[in-house]
């Protein structure tokens, strides 16, 4: 299936780009005129994935994060990727409340938020290479 529209952006792993990424994703999806709730869910899920890339992928060192949005007639696909340290055990990482950084007051709920707020979530990761998150959301209309 061909997307109706597509965009891709890359930015440095700076925490100020968390807000940038969720605003960009939401404005891109807004052209399909989805409900306010759908946009709010997308904003939250993007914030989780981008924050994970910055906090865990790069441990707050400088790296590149990419975000791609593909717009289809009835859904959107969002792909967020980093080239940082990767995840050893993906199943364990997705477990609610699991975090490797309790010292930073992370709550271990990021993946659970992405899974709950989006319709699908796929995680591809390799230690030392990086992490790719692929999420989709059905676009219900007002």
């Amino acid at each position, binding site marked *: 299936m061909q997307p109706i529209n597509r965009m891709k952006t890359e930015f440095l792993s700076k*925490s*100020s780009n*968390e*807000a940038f990424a*969720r605003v960009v994703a939401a404005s891109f999806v807004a052209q399909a005129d989805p409900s306010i709730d759908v946009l*709010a*869910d997308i*904003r*939250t899920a993007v*914030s*989780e994935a981008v*924050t994970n890339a*910055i*906090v865990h992928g790069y441990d707050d060192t400088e790296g590149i994060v990419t975000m791609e949005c593909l717009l289809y007639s009835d859904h959107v696909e969002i792909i967020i990727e980093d080239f940082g340290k990767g995840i050893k055990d993906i199943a364990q990482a997705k477990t609610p409340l699991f975090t490797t950084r309790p010292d*930073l*007051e*992370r*709550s271990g*709920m*990021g993946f*659970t*938020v992405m899974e*709950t*707020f989006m319709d699908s979530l796929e995680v591809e990761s390799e230690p030392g290479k990086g992490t790719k998150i692929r999420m989709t959301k059905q676009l219900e209309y007002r």
Partner: protein
Amino acid sequence: MDVKFAKEGNTLIVLIEGEIDHHTASRARARIDSKFLMEPVKNMVMDLSRVTFMDSAGIGLILGRMNRVNSVGGKMTLRKPKPEISKILKMSKIESIVELDA
């Protein structure tokens, strides 16, 4: 994001305005913790009525403050979250640990 403080008896009222994410939470955390230490207060009310966005960093911010307040025998209350953030509050089950004052 902006954090404002008020005092009611031995309760510190923390009014958070704007968006809570990993970027804004670290500064808010430092400001709230030093205020809570400085003032002769025991309890904390976090007023969320002006929070327009919150992700899991907000859950960490709330639970971290709750632990501090509880460790001095105080009580933590969340006040008036907007519908925009009540989905994540419900999902995280924060409402079953922290008192909610709608």
